[in-house]
């Protein structure tokens, strides 16, 4: 693809029918009311010169370059700030306008370096374009006078530089940081000629409030804010539209390249999930794809104590295939299994589960989503009938009350957080349910109406208390319930939830949240015209994860907040393709589209197509595989792109399990922790090489297009097909789109999906089939997927993991913006500048009790293990709770997390571990290093 530049229509789109007719330079145009003259002109194909306007931001009217003449109007109004009116007659090119514009340009250029030819933005600079457009030929003001030409560059940000000498103070960056990102990290200091762009009082970008989302760089018309990669490599010459592989937001990007090298990733305005916005990970942290530690040759070894031996693809695959068959011959068909990855494409995941079911001949396939969102699958399918978020992201713009439960969107889903913050600045109210005071509780121009700062592990008690208030205070939406839900189930639930044990007063000792706050929050949620729930791993990663998901669904149904725009129950998925990997049938009990393996009709569809008899019984889940491995009945494992030895709880237990395997096959980019237990290493592909689709948290299927050839020489799905073939079950596809065709042919919710349609429409939200050929932005409209919504009782069964005398603190885990999951990718990028190590947050009181000061090294000990971390005193966590992230292997946060898990799905209880924290003079690991 040649370099595609997205058109900039100058000002924002206005929704509505094109009802205002006017004439621009003699051409008739019709646009919606409220559209600017500039945008109307652009739509008619007429470009009015501009500098301070761009269509992602509100018009500002400062540069005076976009002047036009309007018949009957005095003077020369700015077209960006002038709305259209019926019958208007606009001229954009007259001698007077040309003269005025030239004068304006001349002033800009007189204070601008004239080194265009050596400027990194040469060819990609609006100032340059405009100078040409207005026909600037001479600059009458010499550059000898006062100017800003001598000012120093700020290169503190790892990814972009700010060169004040090239800044024209159009304030597009400042506005982008406010309007697009919502961080407000930039300002214009001083005034008049002295006004400059500044990243706050810190004086440089790195130490400022900036979160490095890149919106300002994107908005800057000149080289003043420029990607360092462009400065180093030059402007790109071709681009490929693809999807970020970092989180469940699924942002669309144009990968811009020079030859075979990526120069930059530019968020695409046509991306329906992100609409031109990005975060630091997707925008800048793609360098890992070509990191020197990437393994690109297959390797094998007899024992995990042996050194690795590079071999050909044939040998590696042949070896793996015959070992798998030998093991099955000795220990039985069920003695092997596979784990799929939420980082891989739908197509890659689909072939792995197919290999397990058809070639392995069992259902021992599970996905890493087991450890994050399996309770979502269980809870939402029990109540609504399907396992997916109910809304598209845009829906949040219509919510009046937003309830964020156990999620930290500013860190984990930044681009969605920006959307949410925009809505909150417009006046929507916010309820935050989280033990930790997350950014959203109080951030510039954002303040939660209620922060229900509950004890970790008491989610269900809290949600029951909220529902109790709704029911006992007469806030139930009776019409909705009687029309849309099973009334028998509702009656049982109503009785259960009304009992006193569920009242805010009765649950206060459990949750620690004042009853009055709970009541007020419940009233706020129930009383809103539109109330929406967004939740994350703080809901699912508990021993009552599934119950809590049902509790959220109950609350939404009881208040009628399901089935239209602006409401809903929405899981925020961690990894990029958690939704997709679940959809693709990588649970041991379900085929693609969440259909149980025991369902004969469904099974026959696959048996017919695949030519094998399939097992009608569920297989082993990940934790079951580990337990069975230690027991000795489970002997071989295929692991697709997932570092289970770091990401799974109670790591020591996992390592023991991996160690006891006879064969472990790892398909990944890097020799990760899990690979140290592997016998076969099959190099994988980065997202820049993949060809396929990812499905984001709003069920949106986005295309992932190869930007460069696979560095390992093969697509991952090809490798899986070859392995399957080596085992005697031939699998073969001409290309990835054929795999999607098979998914569509076997999965009713995907029936209408194809690469061709995706390329045409950009993306599709499933269900996409005959009933909804263009996909489904909002689910459960009119009727639930399961017919009628089902209320389920949600008794609070406390976890067995409790604080005790020996382990008096509760450890809870989370994520940070600049790092991703186990950090395998982000740790290999410039992002380490922000998060060089995991730290333990501890409340100052708890720290004082233990003689710990800020920055000390401490030991964290739980029942199952011990690790060392540096600690930070922080009032963000309540007394009695400590918090950390798990992005770095050395900190081994998962050494201490236990094997407790969700009762229904075995999703591990990452969010609650009883621990003790003790001061440590220096970390043992540091001592070892010194020795």
């Amino acid at each position, binding site marked *: 693809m040649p370099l595609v530049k997205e058109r900039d229509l100058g000002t924002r789109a206005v929704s509505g029918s094109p009802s205002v007719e006017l004439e621009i330079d003699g051409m008739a145009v019709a646009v919606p009311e409220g559209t600017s003259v500039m945008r109307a002109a652009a739509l008619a194909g007429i470009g009015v010169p501009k500098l301070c306007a761009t269509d992602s931001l509100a018009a500002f009217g400062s540069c005076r370059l976009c002047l036009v003449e309007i018949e009957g109007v005095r003077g020369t109004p700015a077209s960006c700030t002038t709305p259209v009116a019926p019958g208007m007659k606009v001229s954009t090119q007259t001698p007077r306008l040309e003269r005025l514009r030239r004068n304006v340009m001349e002033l800009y250029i007189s204070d601008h370096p004239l080194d265009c030819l050596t400027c990194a933005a040469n060819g990609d600079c609006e100032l340059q374009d405009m100078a040409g457009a207005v026909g600037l030929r001479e600059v009458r003001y010499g550059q000898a006078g006062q100017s800003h030409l001598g000012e120093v560059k700020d290169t503190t940000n790892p990814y972009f530089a700010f060169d004040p000498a090239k800044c024209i103070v159009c304030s597009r960056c400042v506005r982008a940081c406010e309007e697009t990102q919502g961080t407000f990290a930039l300002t214009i200091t001083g005034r008049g000629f002295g006004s400059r762009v500044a990243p706050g009082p810190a004086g440089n970008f790195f130490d400022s409030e900036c979160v490095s989302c890149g919106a300002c760089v994107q908005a800057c018309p000149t080289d003043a804010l420029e990607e360092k990669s462009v400065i180093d490599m030059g402007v790109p010459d071709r681009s490929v539209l693809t999807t970020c592989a970092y989180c469940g937001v699924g942002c669309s990007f144009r990968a811009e390249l020079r030859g075979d090298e990526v120069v930059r990733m530019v968020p695409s305005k046509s991306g329906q999930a992100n609409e031109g916005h990005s975060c630091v990970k997707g925008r800048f942290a793609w360098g890992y794809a070509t990191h020197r530690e990437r393994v690109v040759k297959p390797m094998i070894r007899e024992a995990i104590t042996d050194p690795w031996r590079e071999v050909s693809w044939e040998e590696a695959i042949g070896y793996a295939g015959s070992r798998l068959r030998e093991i099955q011959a000795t220990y039985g068909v069920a003695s092997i299994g596979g784990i799929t990855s939420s980082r891989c494409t739908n197509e890659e995941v689909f072939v792995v589960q197919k290999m397990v079911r058809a070639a392995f001949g069992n*259902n021992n396939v599970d996905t890493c989503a087991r450890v994050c969102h399996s309770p979502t699958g269980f809870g939402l399918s029990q109540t609504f009938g399907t396992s997916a978020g109910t809304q598209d992201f845009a829906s949040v713009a219509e919510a009046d009350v937003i309830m964020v439960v156990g999620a930290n969107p500013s860190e984990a889903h930044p681009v969605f957080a920006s959307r949410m913050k925009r809505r909150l600045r417009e006046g929507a109210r916010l309820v935050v349910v989280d033990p930790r005071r997350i950014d959203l509780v109080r951030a510039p121009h954002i303040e939660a109406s209620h922060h229900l700062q509950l004890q970790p592990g008491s989610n269900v008690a809290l949600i029951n208390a909220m529902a109790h208030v709704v029911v006992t205070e007469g806030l139930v939406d009776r019409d909705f319930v009687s029309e849309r839900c099973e009334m028998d189930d509702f009656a049982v639930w109503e009785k259960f939830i009304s009992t006193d044990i569920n009242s805010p007063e009765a649950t206060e000792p459990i949750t620690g949240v004042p009853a009055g706050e709970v009541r007020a929050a419940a009233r706020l949620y129930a009383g809103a015209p539109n109330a929406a729930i967004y939740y994350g791993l703080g809901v699912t990663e508990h021993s009552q994860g599934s119950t809590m998901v049902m509790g959220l669904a109950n609350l939404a149904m009881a208040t009628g907040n399901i089935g239209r725009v602006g409401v809903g129950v929405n899981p925020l998925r961690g990894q990029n393709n958690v939704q997709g990997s679940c959809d693709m049938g990588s649970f041991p*009990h379900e085929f693609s589209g969440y259909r149980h393996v025991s*369902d004969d009709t469904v099974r026959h569809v696959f048996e017919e197509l695949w030519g094998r008899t399939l097992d*009608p019984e569920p*297989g082993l889940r990940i934790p079951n595989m580990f337990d069975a491995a230690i027991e000795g009945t489970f002997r071989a494992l295929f692991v697709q792109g997932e570092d289970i030895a770091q990401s799974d709880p109670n790591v020591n237990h996992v390592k023991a399990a991996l160690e006891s395997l006879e064969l472990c096959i790892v398909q990944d980019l890097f020799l990760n922790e899990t690979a140290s237990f592997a016998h076969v290493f099959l190099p994988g592909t980065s997202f820049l090489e993949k060809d396929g689709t990812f499905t984001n948290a709003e069920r949106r299927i986005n295309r992932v297009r190869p930007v460069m050839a696979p560095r390992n020489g093969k697509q991952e799905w090809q490798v899986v097909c070859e392995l399957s073939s080596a085992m005697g079950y031939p699998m073969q596809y001409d290309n990835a789109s054929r795999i999607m065709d098979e998914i569509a042919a076997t999965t009713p919710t995907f029936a209408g999906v194809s690469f061709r349609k995706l390329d045409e429409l950009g993306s599709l939200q499933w269900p996409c089939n005959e009933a909804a050929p263009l996909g489904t932005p909002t689910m459960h409209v009119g009727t639930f997927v399961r017919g009628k919504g089902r209320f389920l009782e949600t*008794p609070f069964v406390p976890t067995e993991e409790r604080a005790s005398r020996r382990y008096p603190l509760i450890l809870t885990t989370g994520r940070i913006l600049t790092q991703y999951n186990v950090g395998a990718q982000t740790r290999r990028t410039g992002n380490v500048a922000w998060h060089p190590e995991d730290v333990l947050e501890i409340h100052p009181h708890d720290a004082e009790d233990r003689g710990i000061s800020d920055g000390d090294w401490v030991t964290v000990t739980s029942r199952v293990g011990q690790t060392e971390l540096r600690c930070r005193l922080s009032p963000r966590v309540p007394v009695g709770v400590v918090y950390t992230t798990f992005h770095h292997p050395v900190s081994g946060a998962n050494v201490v997390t236990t094997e407790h898990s969700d009762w*229904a799905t075995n999703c591990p209880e990452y969010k609650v571990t009883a621990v003790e924290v003790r001061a440590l003079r220096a970390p043992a690991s540091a001592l070892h290093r010194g020795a």
Partner: protein
Amino acid sequence: MPLRNDLVQMANQIAANFLHHGPEVAASEVAAHLKRFWAPPMRAELLANLDDGRLDPIVVRAGELLRELESAGSNSAS
């Protein structure tokens, strides 16, 4: 060989989460849950050890129901 710890823990936890239905309904819910989500070797191991003293009485009752279900040879899940 006594029943694996993880199976005891998981089974008892499932029972605790259905307890609110009362013992008889809870037992049949637990049985259905095991049938739907547990791999056959895990179920078999549980059924072979229903006399393990650590199991919740509801699990024991569920085990008996499950045994009936299995011998009825029905594959269809609830």
